[in-house]
């Protein structure tokens, strides 16, 4: 665990810089707020509607595709470290491509159902 000391130190420095910048900002800036200043900045025009809008259900599929690819990629790392070892070889290679093939079926299905087209 001691090898993570630099990571923790870096994280602490990051938090310190971020919090420090905001704190200095708060201490130095003048605050004369008016209702106009406190409205949400929306490209210079008056904001319309609420901050939250219901998103379309189709984005859910894109997010889920991201999850699939993330899980996919995560398994490639341990696979890449062992498949060239003696005793693994072709079997392990085929196993990984079966895995990728089944996931590719899902991508093909999404493509065939025109989920990937941006209308």
């Amino acid at each position, binding site marked *: 665990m001691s090898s993570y000391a630099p990571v923790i130190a870096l994280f602490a420095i990051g938090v310190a810089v971020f919090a420090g910048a905001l704190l200095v900002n708060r201490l130095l800036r003048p605050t004369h707020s008016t209702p106009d200043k406190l409205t949400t900045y929306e490209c210079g025009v008056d904001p319309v509607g609420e901050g939250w809008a219901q998103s379309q259900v189709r984005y859910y599929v894109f997010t889920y595709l991201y999850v699939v690819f993330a899980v996919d990629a995560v398994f490639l790392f341990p696979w890449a470290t062992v498949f060239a070892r003696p005793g693994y070889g072709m079997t392990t290679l085929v*196993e990984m491509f079966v895995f990728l093939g089944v996931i590719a079926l899902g991508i093909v299905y999404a493509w065939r159902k025109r989920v990937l087209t941006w209308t």
Partner: protein
Amino acid sequence: MSEAPSYLSPTGHEIVFLLLGVVVVGTGLLVVTTRQVVHAALWLVVCLGALAGCYLVLTAEFVAWVQVLIYVGAVVVLLLFGIMLTRAPIGRSPDLDSRNRPVAAVVALATAAVLVTVVVDGFRHAYVDLSPGKGTAEEVGVAVFRYWVLPFEALSVLLLAALVGAIVISRTDIRGR
């Protein structure tokens, strides 16, 4: 697994692990008690992140970073999208508590009792040797591709099924052809 040392003189590892465990339990409670659904998802980030810290303390480095990538990254994004799909506008919602609360509490307590009993019974005197290098990607690869190939392949089918299900549910705007 090696000889268990005394409980009375905790090492630095054990103290860090306990503190992270407290964070996990505390933020887990906040996830289910907060009135704002989006805050629940954000507390879940802290909860899962602290759990990744627990894995790191147990020298399971690869699993820890997978936890950050998959759960803190992908699954929470999925959850946020799920929230944004189902509720608008999102804000404080007083109707989050259902009347199933007593039943849910009983189920949760029973599940916790079963898990704690099994874990305590199975690993009562086991003590994990925390020397580094036991949880690298290489070790995980050896374990997955030597002993756990079938669950690994089953996982791909699970992902496929969930993907097809998500597409079937979400393609109402695509009219069948």
